[in-house]
Each structure stands twice: as C-alpha cells, then as structure tokens.
C-alpha cells in the first residue's frame, strides 16, 4: 500500500477538518526526506480519529503539518472550511485558539520556571480573555475538570508533579480556550500503564464535557483502538488502511495492518507469541522510498505490479478502506494475480 487517493474522505457539513493530498518534505544535506507523501484524512465533529503507525511513518509530522508547524510542502488543510496554508500569520494564530495540540512528553512541554496557574492561564492572557478574576475562575475550572485540585496545584511548578499529573496540566492548558479540535501526539506513551489508563479515561471524559473532536496519534494499537471512532494506519508517509476500529482490528485488509496486529504481545500466556507472519527487515529510508507501494519491500503478498503501480485508497467494506493491490481480506484483486498464500498469511 501505502497509497494515495481520497476514496475514504466523507462529505457533509459536520466534517471539521479535511486534509487533502498532504505532503511534507524536508530538505537535508543527504537529500529530500519524504516524511508524508500525499495523504488525505478527514475528521467529523465529535469524532476521534486514531492515527497509528511505527516510528518514521509520518504520523507526528502529519499532526504538526495540520497545525502548520511547519506548513506542509503541498496539499490542503481545510479547518472549518478555510485552507490554513492560505492564512496570514495573524489569522493562523487566531485559528489555533480552536486547534490545540498535546505533546508526548508532559514534562518538557511545560515551562519548569512557571507556576501551574500561569501555564494554564497563558492562552487566556495572550488573547486577553476576561478579567483577571474571570481568568482565575476559568483556570480553576479546567484544573478541576482534569482532576487536579486547583487550590493545591495552582501555585506549584511542574517539577512537583508526576508525569501523569503533568499530562493533566497539558490537557488543561489545551482546553482553556475551548478548542474545537485537539491533536494529541502520543499523549500516553511516556506514562506507566496504570497512569495511561487514567489519562485515556480523562480524554474520553473531556471529549464529552467540552464536545471535542480529537486526532489521537500513537504507536500502540490497543490504545488507539480504545479511544478512536475511526483509525488510519500509516506506513512510510502513506495511508495503508482506514476503518472503524472494531472492523479494522477484526478483519485487517492491509498486509501491514495484519502484521502489526500479529506483532503485539498479548497479556495472556495461553496465546503463544507469533513466530510466523512477522515482518522482517527494517523500514526503508524515507530519503529514497520504494517505488509503487512503499510497503512492498517487506510485504508477504508483494507482486511485480506493486513495484510499478501505487495502490489507491479504495473501499473494501462498510466504511473500511484499503490501499493495496492484494489485500488479505475481502480480496478483489484481478484474477490470476492473487499470490499464493494470501489467505494463509492472515491466520
């Protein structure tokens, strides 16, 4: 896979964010890094879109490019119907009040010298929202919402909190301006499992309380399944597969998704770890990605066609899309081209 195309995009007024043919390239001394290459996504109001993939797949770059941090090399990012790339700096800053970001490392993303109340109030101060008293009340309200006692936490500094508590402060800061869309980039991967569960539950609660729309970026498939309404799997700067979590995890269509799911260690000793059907080798360099389908060099189903023709995203089931010539489920590949072992590899 790893293909382009827009078959999975939806129409309708409730689409908050629409990303079309997004490309991000970095020019380095070693050549051009093709970090994100023509991906399209959309998110409906109140939905959580999970963006999942291994390191180097471009999931974080996608999240940042949506925020225009930095702006993408090409492609459109339509937020509330406006193309963010066409906005001036001032207009973009204004839009970002409704488009917030939560970073992976909760400790380094908070200024260690400032008190929690100032960190959380800063967006309000910058936008001159309300009087001092109103701001204080608002800060207390969001701190309380994320599960921190404002009377205790407000005058402390980040180092006095644990990682999980710092992530709560980050969440409070992102919510204080009442955003529409929050992009969470690996918000729980630096946390212990017991704390991770607290933060995942908190995000679900905040989504309900403030009517948020989320983009949740993570490498952990189980975490993404838990929180998402729709999941997009990425590989080397391309979209592999898009679908509802229950559907996509039960019947992965893309060989990469299937291999990824097989690799996850299951906390159950009666399930022996997979010894076969695992991916071999390493991620190819994004400096010189493979021709055609970018996954073909590690794909068990790869055929000659995959090398010269890039697969396009196409429907394969109800709200389930795949970019692959030879998907492992519901395969409708042209007769005679179905490689031997396609069905076997899903076992």
């Amino acid at each position, binding site marked *: 896979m790893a293909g382009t195309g827009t078959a999975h995009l939806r129409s309708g007024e409730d689409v908050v964010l629409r990303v079309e043919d997004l490309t991000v390239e970095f020019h380095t001394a070693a050549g051009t890094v093709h970090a994100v290459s023509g991906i399209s996504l959309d998110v409906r109001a109140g939905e959580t879109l999970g963006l999942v993939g291994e390191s180097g797949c471009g999931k974080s770059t996608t999240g940042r490019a949506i925020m225009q941090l930095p702006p993408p090399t090409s492609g459109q990012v339509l937020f509330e119907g406006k193309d963010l790339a066409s906005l001036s700096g001032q207009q973009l800053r204004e839009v970002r009040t409704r488009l917030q970001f939560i970073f992976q490392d909760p400790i380094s993303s908070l200024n260690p010298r400032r008190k929690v109340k100032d960190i959380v109030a800063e967006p309000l101060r910058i936008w001159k929202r309300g009087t001092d008293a109103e701001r204080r009340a608002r800060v207390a309200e969001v701190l309380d919402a994320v599960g921190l006692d404002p009377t205790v936490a407000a005058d402390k500094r980040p180092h006095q909190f644990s990682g999980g508590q710092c992530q709560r402060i980050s969440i409070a800061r992102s919510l204080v301006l009442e955003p529409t869309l929050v992009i969470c980039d690996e918000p729980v991967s630096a946390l212990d499992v017991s704390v991770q569960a607290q933060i995942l539950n908190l995000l679900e609660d905040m989504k309900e309380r403030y009517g948020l729309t989320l983009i949740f970026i993570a490498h952990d498939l*189980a975490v993404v*399944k838990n929180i998402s309404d729709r999941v997009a799997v990425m590989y080397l700067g391309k979209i592999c597969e898009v679908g509802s979590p229950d559907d996509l995890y039960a019947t992965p269509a893309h060989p990469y998704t299937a291999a990824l799911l097989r*690799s996850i260690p299951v906390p159950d000793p009666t399930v022996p770890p997979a010894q076969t059907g695992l991916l071999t080798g390493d*991620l190819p360099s994004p400096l010189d990605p493979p021709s055609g389908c970018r996954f073909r060099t590690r794909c068990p189903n790869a055929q000659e066609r995959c090398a010269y023709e890039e697969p396009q995203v196409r429907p394969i089931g109800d709200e389930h899309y795949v970019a692959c010539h030879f998907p492992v489920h519901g395969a409708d590949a042209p007769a005679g081209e179905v490689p031997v072992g396609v069905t076997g590899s899903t076992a």
Partner: protein
Amino acid sequence: MARRIIAAPSVEGPLLVVDDFRTHFRTDGGTVRAVDGVSLTLERGRTLGIVGESGSGKTVLSRSIMGLLTARNVVRTGSVKLNGQELVGASNAEMRALWGTEMAMVFQDPMTSLNPVMKIGRQITEGLRFHLKVPKDEARAQALSLLESVGIPDPKRRLDQYPHELSGGMRQRVTIAIALACGPHLLFADEPTTALDVTVQAQILNLLQEQQRERYMAMVLVTHDLGVVAGRTDEIAVMYAGQIVEKAPTSTLFANVRMPYTEALLKSIPKLEQPSHTRLQIIGGRPPDLVNPPHGCRFAPRCPYAQPKCHAEMPPLVEAEPPGHEYRCWFPVGTEAGREALERNLAEHVPAAEAAVTGDSHAAGLVDTAGLVDTADHGGEA
C-alpha cells in the same frame, strides 16, 4: 556452523539464589529503599519475568544483582548467590571474572549502550579477547558467527561499521551478540524492546528466546509490559515499591491472580479484543515514596480491597496453592476474605474501590495533589 560456546550445566542446585536482598541509596533526602527484601530462585535454562511500573525497583534489582551499582551511596545487603558464589560484597575484580562469562546484560536503549566511536566488530570481540583470551583472528571469526546467529544480514560488512550506521533493531541485535559472546549462564534483559517498534520488538523477543533455548541459558526478562512476559517466561515476579508482591509460574499467575496490584495492572491495560471505547479500570493515586514507605502493605493506599489491617501491618509473602505461587496480601483476590473486603469498601464508598470500578479517578478524589512529592516520577522507562 562456526564454533560457539555453549553453557553446560556444571554445578548442582539452582543457578541464582537471591535472599532478602536490599539495595538502598543514601541521598540528601533520606535513604531510598529501591529494593527492599527480595528473595527469588532461578534454575538453569529457565526464564523469569520481572514486571513492574517505573520506580518499582525492577531495574535496580537486576543491576544490583549484576553488581553494576558501584556508587558510594549504594548499600547492598542480603545475599545473592550465583552457582553458590556470594556476590554481595564481592570485589570488582571478582565480579569482572563473572561478567560476560557467567552473567551478562542487554540494556534497554541500544542507541546509548553501544560505543559510538568503536566498530561493531571490536565491540563484540572485546569481551572474547579480555575474558577468554581468544586470539584476534579467532575472535573476529566468532564475532562473525555471532552476528549471523542474531540474524544480522551481511554480517561481514557490519563488523566494520559503526553503530550509527545500523537501525535500532539491528543495534539491539548487536548488543545481544555482545552479551552472548562469552557464553553466559545467566542473561539479564532489561526492557530490551521498550525503545523499539512493535514489529521489531517481536523479532527481538523471538531471537532472545531462541538463543536462550539453544544455549541452555537462564534469562531474567525485566519489563513493564505484561504482554511481553506472558508468552515468554516460565515464572513471573511482580514488583511494587521495591518488593516482590506476587510470584508464580506464568500460567498460574494469569489464571489465578491473588495480589490486588497485579489484578489492577492487568485490568488497566487496553486490550485488542475489547471493543473500542471500553472504559479502562484505573489504579488511583501514585506509588509510595520509597524514603518513607507506608508501614503496612505498600499498595494499601491505592488498593480497592484495603482494610484497616492492611494499613497497619505489612503482609508477608505467603505461599498458596498450587505450590510456587506466592503473594503478599491479607485479603487476596479470588478468596472469600478478598470478596468481603471489596464489598465492604464499595458499600463505604472508599475512593480506591470506586475508582477501580468506575475508572474515574477524579470523582473518587484520588488524584491526590495534597501528597505531592518534590521529585517528579516521570512515567515510562527513562
């Protein structure tokens, strides 16, 4: 197939016996009881999983057994016997004779555990040359076969490359090759796959298992991920606040959890088979301060089952049926006493019990900002 050093069982009795072992750090803020009375036994060729969250003492335990904590503020007491030889109090020279040949370690981060300015080949042959006095050419030939056996393609070329020329997964294969070079009887793998992607993780764990079986080597697999140890260990020890709180053969532990902490840990992990938006159970609060740990059970302040007795008296590690299953709890999960304790707590709206049931740490008032400590216990594995 090139020559390989295979560990052969030589001495009778268990390979590793750890008895009431403690590792404390003297600091300005008081004595941190990082490992506080751990006992365990490991037979030859077996795999022990040590599971715990950050700060549970699992990494300190493995490093302290290896004798890698040599700073002057480290106080090690109790006993660690490898093949009958006492390691607590052993001199550096004595330890040096054991490192590599008797026990070795694979570290979490392959980016930092390799020397960036030394070629891969030299890093592998270093141990062979130093410990086993293998001649240069032969050491290089052995390094080549080691790289082959850990699944590195084109090993001949890799010998003359530097670590930065290899991917993360390949580097971890190199550190495994280094650890295996002198044929140790005991391998510590401390979070060997935490820094790696999930597809690479599966490859590395399979490699470790295969090498362990082939060499009849005992392995201690230290991890925070219960999924990693579930299918790959004979026995699991769960650590909390410097102590082992439950220890059992792997299948027994998962089928028959007794310790509330283990139960809570298992229930807080999102699972692939659960439908999306399944409410996760949480463990409210945070691990205790290891300078002044609670007098009673160290998990009691966060435990849904905790009773007054738990706060007053530390439960001993007791053996249960079937033999080999030990846990540290007054009101164990799955027993009449445990059931009653949980019901009583729910009836009395004890926050920890409600949090475990509703998954809502906030309503349960468990996010205790009042008890903030001054050290940020950054989650994950630093």
